[in-house]
């Protein structure tokens, strides 16, 4: 009974924050299959760490951390199998518990640009676009507040140029 309540509580948190997970998974993968696998992995990592979550930080901070760390590591494991301790299992279920619609072309352009960034910058810009403050970004990433500010400035320039270039390639304005 207690376990069910625990699980329901987790599911509610998960549902409230599913947007964060989808956006992060989309940014760190290139194919739909990878994305689905990654969302499954994130869900499981969150569930595994849920018992250890004592509310010392905000729920969103915990979700961002687990989702971003899983995503960064997910990319790694497909390059090298040496660190794939938790990911060797090939019995990945299709993600049949999630229903979502196709994204807009604008979002597609934005993701294409975000994809060009390295893992750290990708994390920072995703957190920034989601409306997190410099302080929150610092807490999630471990980067100092000053560095977050500097990085955002640089990424902004990079993204700006990339969006213009991509829009030209897509033939939209």
């Amino acid at each position: 009974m207690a376990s069910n309540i625990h699980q329901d509580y987790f599911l509610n948190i998960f549902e409230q924050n599913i947007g964060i997970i989808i956006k992060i998974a989309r940014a760190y993968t290139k194919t739909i299959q990878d994305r689905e696998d990654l969302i499954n992995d994130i869900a499981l990592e969150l569930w595994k760490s849920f018992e250890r979550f004592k509310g010392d930080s905000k729920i969103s901070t915990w979700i961002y951390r687990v989702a971003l760390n899983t995503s960064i590591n997910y990319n790694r494991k497909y390059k090298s199998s040496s660190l794939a301790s938790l990911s060797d299992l090939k019995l990945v279920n299709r993600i049949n518990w999630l229903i979502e619609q196709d994204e807009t072309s604008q979002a597609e352009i934005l993701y294409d640009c975000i994809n060009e960034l390295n893992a750290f910058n990708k994390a920072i810009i995703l957190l920034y676009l989601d409306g997190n403050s410099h302080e929150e970004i610092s807490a999630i990433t471990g980067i100092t507040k000053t560095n977050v500010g500097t990085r955002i400035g640089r990424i902004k320039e990079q993204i700006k140029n990339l969006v213009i270039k991509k829009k030209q390639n897509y033939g939209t304005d």
Partner: protein
Amino acid sequence: MELIELQNMWKQYDDKLSETTRLNKEILKRLLQSKPERRLNWIKLKAGFNLVLPIVAIGLVLLPNIIFRNEIDFYAGSLLFGIVYILFYYWAIRYYMLINKIDYTNSITLIRKKVKQLEKYKIKISRLGYILIPFGILGIFLMANFPIFSKHSILPLSLIILVFLGSVYYTFKYEVFEQFRKIDIELDEIEQLEEK
């Protein structure tokens, strides 16, 4: 295009996502109940297999082919092989335990540093492994009373040594130092991000 436009684009996408995303809680619930357990069992099974395999290999391959002799060569060979074998075994277990200690609820920089340090550890143990393998092989030869310096053995033995030396030379000169250099640069970069 300014950042504010990007943020607006993002906001629109976010709103649309919230509207169109639906969760099937029942399926997710079942998935959460069964999959971590299955995954955990798989990890345990794999770990168990990796722990048992070297022992089985020794039992099946080495022991039936080696006859005990009360000679200094045999003891020296057993000692050499035993030390190398135990070290390899210990490193493999330690590496596995370190991987499992990684906690994704920590900050990104911390996890990145841990992963990089793990990579470094892996390279270090591979390097030490390279150095120790000849001693392990020598131990087997001594235990098996293999005639190292006979007419029949000199050609295959020379070939083994040549291939081994070539591999060590290539690995040390081109791969290991380059990998270490890259990892150290990445670690420095991460530390700078945390310190400034």
